[in-house]
């Protein structure tokens, strides 16, 4: 790893992050919320100073960015985001201790949406804006934004992009990565603006509309209200947010193809079909199972749709406490947490394409029991999935499950019950947010001991960066020049 290049590029990304802190700082000044004003002023100064220090450490001509450097930049950036993003919460008194503040910031940037704040309604508007902004920035990725706006990255852009963007097959939308990153951010920003406008039109206050739009498109889950989206008690808002949660969980490349008029190609996308089918099945089952709790099937369908999409898109909003649902519904939602959204989206989880490929591999292996000498290819449409991709999918799933098991064990050892521990870990790894039982949607996680929070922080970052980038930083090969 060329440390100078890593420091230099990370310094630019931190400068970019510091600039975003000016928005809540401005709002805090406008609202005369002194505590928040101090918090953001201090956070801005600290981030800018750290960026300057890194800039100094990385002074000189930036060299070509290699894969190892890209891993360094992305991991250092995400670690820095957790630390500097936490400063406002700590200074303005939103959270009590540094670990909780870091937890809240990491939960924001990784678009997890778990919170340690018990009374969100009491937070200042600036703090709520920052919480939702962290979702928005982390959703599409600060590094991807950096790739889009920073000139002259060359092939380094590709390494940075691939380290941050999740999914088994990350095909570029444009020949040059910078243009791909720009296209993604344009689509993302346009969808955010559209949702803000619709929510505002549906009588949600503008500030809440903007915050919920950022949170939805980033598939985060932070709300400006303690009761989350449920606080607005509006069927139209529920349906609109459901629709946008679904959109945010789709591969953003599909929107690009849609803009180019390649509609047939979009409909032929196997991952989209699989994801929609999975959601439809879960929604139908959930609607029936929770029907007795609601006045009619339409309302039941509305809540089932919202909760299912909140989980499968890994957003984690709530309109009612799904932890109080019957066991079948809870188990279904728990399983959905593993899958998450589509590759190339802002959602987390194993990704629909991986789950689909896993099922296909499983089916072909079952066939091979009867005909062991047969050579089976996994096809997606006209193309064959390369065996290396299948291998990567299997390895990633194994790593995901191993991490899940190991972290659950640690949380149980630190005193949490099994259901809460398992659901907290998977909700963090897949960036869903709320889990079940003690970590359910109506609970905050402030009660967890610092060590447990630390484990979940690692899970959140590992899940967002798809595990290997984070693990790779611990190997000596990455540090070797």
């Amino acid at each position: 790893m060329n440390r100078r290049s890593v420091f230099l590029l990370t310094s630019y990304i931190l400068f970019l992050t510091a600039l975003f802190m000016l928005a809540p700082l401005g709002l805090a000044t406008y609202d005369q919320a002194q505590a928040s004003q101090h918090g953001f002023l201090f956070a801005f100064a600290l981030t800018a100073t750290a960026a300057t220090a890194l800039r100094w450490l990385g002074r000189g001509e930036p060299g070509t960015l290699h894969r190892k450097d890209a891993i360094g930049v992305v991991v250092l950036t995400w670690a820095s985001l957790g630390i500097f993003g936490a400063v406002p919460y700590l200074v303005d008194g939103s959270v009590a201790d540094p670990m909780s503040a870091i937890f809240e910031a990491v939960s924001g940037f990784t678009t997890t949406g778990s919170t340690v704040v018990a009374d969100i309604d009491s937070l200042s508007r600036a703090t709520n804006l920052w919480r939702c902004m962290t979702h928005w920035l982390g959703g599409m990725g600060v590094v991807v934004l950096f790739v889009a706006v920073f000139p002259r990255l060359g092939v380094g852009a590709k390494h940075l992009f691939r380290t941050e963007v999740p999914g088994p097959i990350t095909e570029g939308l444009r020949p040059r990565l910078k243009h791909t990153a720009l296209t993604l951010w344009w689509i993302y920003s346009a969808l955010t603006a559209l949702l803000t406008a619709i929510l505002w039109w549906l009588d949600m206050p503008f500030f809440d509309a903007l915050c919920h739009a950022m949170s939805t498109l980033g598939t985060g889950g932070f709300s400006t209200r303690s009761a989350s989206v449920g606080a607005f008690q509006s069927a139209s808002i529920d349906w609109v947010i459901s629709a946008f949660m679904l959109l945010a969980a789709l591969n953003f490349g599909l929107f690009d193809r849609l803009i180019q008029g390649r509609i047939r190609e979009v409909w032929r996308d196997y991952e989209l079909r699989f994801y929609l089918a999975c959601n439809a099945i879960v929604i139908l089952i959930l609607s029936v199972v929770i029907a007795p709790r609601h006045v009619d099937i339409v309302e039941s369908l509305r809540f089932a749709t919202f909760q299912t999409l909140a989980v499968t898109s890994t957003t984690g909003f709530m309109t009612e406490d799904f932890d109080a649902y019957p066991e079948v519904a809870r188990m279904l939602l728990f399983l959905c947490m593993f899958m998450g959204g589509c590759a190339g989206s802002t959602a987390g989880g194993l990704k629909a394409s991986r789950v689909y490929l896993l099922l296909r591999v499983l089916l072909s292996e079952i066939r091979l029991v009867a005909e062991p000498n047969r050579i089976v290819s996994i096809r997606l449409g006209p193309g064959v999935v390369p065996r290396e991709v299948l291998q990567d999918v299997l390895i990633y799933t194994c790593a995901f499950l191993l991490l899940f098991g190991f972290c659950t064990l640690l949380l149980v050892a630190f005193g949490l019950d099994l259901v809460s521990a398992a659901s907290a870990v998977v909700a963090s790894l897949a960036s869903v947010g709320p889990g079940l039982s003690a970590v359910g949607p109506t609970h905050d996680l402030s009660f967890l001991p610092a060590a447990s929070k630390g484990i979940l922080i690692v899970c959140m970052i590992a899940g967002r960066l798809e595990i290997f980038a984070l693990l790779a930083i611990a190997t000596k090969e990455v540090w070797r020049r």
Partner: protein
Amino acid sequence: MRCLIFGAGDVGTHLARVLAHANHEIVLIDRDADLLRQAEESLDIMTVHGDATHWKVLEKAEAGSAQLVVSVTGSDDANVVAAALASQRGASRSVARVDDPAFFSGEGGLETGVLGIHAILCASRLVSEELLRLVESLEATSVDQLAGNVLQLASVTVSHTGQLLGASVQEKLKALERVHMVGIGRDGQVRGPHEIERLELGDILLLCGRPAPVAHALGRLTGDRLDRKAVIVGGGGVGHQLARMLRGREHRVQILERDRARCEWLSDNLRGIEVIHGDATNLNFLRDEHVDSADYVVAATRADEVNLLVSLMAKDLGVPTTFSLVHRPGYSDIYGHLGIHGTAGRHDVVSKLVAWLFPWKGCRFVGKSPVDGYAILECVLPSGLAKDLTVRDLAFGSDVAIAGIVRQHAQVEWSAATRLEAGDIIAVLAPAQAARELSRRLTQLGGHS
């Protein structure tokens, strides 16, 4: 500009690198997924896995919206088919590489407008020409290719030792056949040949024309002996064509080739050239064949390792100058460090010519001129020229010297009264800062539509 490159071999990857550095959008297509993976690892490009002669692959790569398609796979047939298909689908420009010189109607190594393909390049011919240019540079101060290798600009500096010092310019002018004397560089200025009577020490003679006449003129002007002994190691496509070119320059050529069948073929097809069967990496063989008596050795086998070894052995035997064919991009510097005088590679010549084929307007920089402060520029005449526009009407200014004119990849024999057409390329020597003024003048000339 969106560019599609078919073939991720040495030539295709190098071209992708050159064009990506020039900020073009590159899509690289190949049947070999490993080659694509290697290219993707080091370049900011998009790759498509598949056969470029298949409709589906072309559709996936959006060939119809490409401004440039370059087909440089290892197969001549596939290159022509792929480029023609891409043109048919709507690609603005297409270029195909064909290595077999028998495909071409002329000797230029460049064919235009065949099957709707904008240009078909003979890579082996182009690389042979580049090696020839290196050889000819031995007799000149510098030799530059102009207008897509159609013209050559050579310069000779008057020294104490040669026969040029004190010679009459008019007499030298008379001795030139099919070569234009662009001017004489003196005191940092390019002067017309009629402005100077006798050549002085340090004067730089500038000659322009087709490569063969220029080479001939260089020999006559400098009085250097033409019958140099050349040894070419490797009788493949490049060796064969280089031998033919050198024979035309009256060099005594010897080809050393390891494959007996190929030797027989070469002997049948190359009259007047000595073909010797043997392994050139064997030192005793080189001694037996008196390679040490050669004026220069060109290593042109298919393997970089052999070329490097042969060049070093020839140098060790006392051959004053060695040149080598290089296959892998980036190796040229290593050859230079080891004292080999010059290298040429398919990847390099193809990418230079493809870059040259890009449509451009006005005036563009080709290279530094041997006369300090002057640049070699190429100007393309715009559409909308006045009727009966002649060279005289160009009025480029007194400090601009016209080197040559090229129309549709062919040299135009010109005088002040020659009529010009839109699309003509005029190669000039001009003060480095004059490019903008020349572009403005070209815009003025195009204002008659």
